[in-house]
């Protein structure tokens, strides 16, 4: 998983490394926005600071030419719901008088197992669309992680991309700086889209994306401190507290299991047998009883859920611990809120079956039977 930085956080890091960014202020109220534009002047961009892509199209970025427009933009954007996230901060930034928009980025090419630098003259638009429709418009250069991005490689990829010659060396130097940041911060992606070429033929980073590999946060205290709990809904926030891998979906069959592949398979089987999965919830390996009880609490608190299937194939997870957790969770209710089907296999499954309070759950022996029963339960409840 990755930890996303906000544009303003990434720009602070870029600026410190010597990459030019437009003058800007962070603001969290209309008054603060008005103070900021007074200092910065017009035109000014008012940009929502939320962790979603496509902010511009969704109305999260506005350009103000005067005081009225700035106030209007601040009122519109602050507090707005942007794809499920509430905007509580905006970046107020000096508008750039630009002639061209470029794209530069660095990411991990998993099929090569190496980072790759990417440069394109088609900046300012969704680069994934460019990659699909016109892949030749993006020049790529793989980087040996033992040595880093050599300056000649940065020049090569910039020339290959057809960057105008008068700014080519500047873009190449952006790129080597970006790779240094990528490497030293354990970034998973780093991207400037667009890099603007100004009318004075300078270049400036008009946007900034920087995502950090959260497996590496242990060695980046400064970045870890920027982590914010930003969840799309309360359930995902709760999953974050419990430390579960959880994704909410739109169906009504709640799914709990161990191991990503098996949980995904359980979702697929719910769909295959005519049901609709409500969530992905992986309790991970070696879960103890309390974690199991928390998982049930999670799924029960989703109002869309009409029935639950609990599918465990124990390797390091032990069936007896799972059974204990299920009992604990269910015995606390006077009436079981939603029917639960349990399937236990693998390590200590037999011990688990002996412990499991079968008055409270329905037991099935195979994955297919368990899923079909849960789908049937859900259909009966929702009728």
């Amino acid at each position: 998983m990755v930890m996303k930085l906000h544009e303003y956080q990434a720009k602070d890091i870029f600026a410190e490394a010597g990459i030019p960014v437009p003058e800007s202020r962070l603001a969290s109220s209309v008054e603060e926005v008005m103070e900021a534009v007074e200092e910065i002047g017009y035109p000014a961009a008012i940009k929502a600071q939320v962790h979603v892509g496509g902010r511009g199209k969704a109305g999260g970025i506005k350009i103000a030419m005067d005081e009225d427009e700035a106030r209007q933009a601040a009122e519109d954007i602050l507090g707005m719901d942007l794809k499920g996230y509430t905007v509580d901060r905006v970046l107020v930034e000096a508008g750039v008088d630009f002639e061209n928009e470029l794209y530069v980025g660095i990411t991990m090419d998993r099929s090569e197992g190496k980072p790759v630098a990417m440069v394109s003259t088609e900046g300012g638009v969704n680069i994934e669309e460019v990659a699909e429709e016109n892949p030749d418009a993006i020049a790529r250069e793989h980087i040996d992680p033992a040595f880093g991005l050599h300056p000649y490689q940065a020049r090569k990829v910039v020339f290959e991309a057809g960057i105008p010659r008068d700014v080519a060396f500047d873009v190449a130097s952006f790129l080597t700086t970006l790779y240094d940041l990528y490497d030293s911060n354990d970034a998973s992606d780093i991207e400037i889209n667009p890099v603007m070429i100004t009318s004075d033929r300078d270049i400036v980073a008009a946007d900034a994306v920087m995502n950090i590999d959260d497996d590496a946060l242990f060695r980046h205290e400064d970045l870890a401190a920027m982590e914010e709990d930003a969840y799309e809904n309360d359930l995902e926030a709760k999953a974050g507290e419990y430390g579960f891998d959880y994704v909410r979906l739109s169906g009504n069959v709640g799914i709990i299991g161990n191991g990503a592949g098996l949980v995904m398979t359980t979702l697929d089987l719910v769909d295959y047998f005519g049901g609709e999965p409500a969530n992905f919830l992986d309790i991970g390996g070696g879960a103890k009883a309390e974690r199991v009880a928390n998982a049930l609490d999670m799924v029960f608190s989703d109002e869309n859920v009409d029935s639950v299937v609990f599918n465990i194939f124990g390797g390091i997870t032990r069936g007896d611990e799972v059974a204990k957790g299920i009992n604990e969770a269910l015995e606390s209710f006077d009436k079981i809120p939603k029917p639960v089907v349990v399937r236990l296999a693998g390590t200590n499954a037999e011990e688990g079956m002996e412990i499991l309070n079968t008055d409270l759950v329905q037991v099935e022996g195979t994955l297919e039977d368990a899923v079909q029963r849960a789908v049937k339960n859900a259909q009966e409840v929702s009728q």
Partner: protein
Amino acid sequence: MSIFVDDDTRVVVQGITGGEGKFHTRQMVEYGTNVVAGTSPGKGGQDVDGIPVYDTVEEAVDEEDANASVVFVPPAFAGDAIFEALDTDLDLVVAITEGVPTQDMAKVNKRLSETDTRLIGPNCPGIITPGEAKLGILPGNIFEEGNVGLVSRSGTLTYQVVSNLTERGIGQTTAIGIGGDPIIGTSFVDALEAFENDPDTHAVVMCGEIGGEDEEQAAKYIAENMDTPVAGFIAGRTAPPGKRMGHAGAIVSGSGTGTAESKISALNDAGVPVGDTPNEVADHIEDFL
């Protein structure tokens, strides 16, 4: 026959004195694996259940003639542990650790390409040749000796499919969990190639999942190079784009790459039947044998 591990495999457990390392060393020994040494920096000279502990992998190789290692070292130190193993020219390194930073793995991957060592993982359940040896955390009792090879990105899904096979009396030559991370050592293609060259493997199960392009590359390899029949399974058909499904590598990107549909159709085009359920995969394997 089998691939990558057998009764001649002499194992050193890296991180043998930790909780996980100690527990799974016992399980591996109980299964019959020849665990000859362990390492734990600073604890050289001690022993775990009579297995000698060394400070370095090099000593374990020099003193006990180890030729394979299993890494149970915590994620912050796992990259370093894999480098240490690679620098001693072991034949095989199996990295169980989950959560190794991706850039550490990119550096490991670079070093790996300069050695003859095989790396399996990280973030994987390991490898087992039933009746001979297991290196990792797979539950030994669900496996049976036989003629089907299995390679999978996921641990528990492997167990599910293996139990579907074993219940029907279909045993396995070797089963490998290659791991769910974006950068891994042994790929599907590497494992498929080894199974193709193993005369005792008469059919192969390949369990993939959404994300990346490894399954598509495997399909291409199967079509061009394999006579041994392969049956497949792909997890994540119902995964929405942009949401990571547990594994760091299991994500359908916004541009639509890495989808289950693309993987299933690539496999079907290569003549590989893909089961809708794990049990259907076992049906296909039964048909092959």
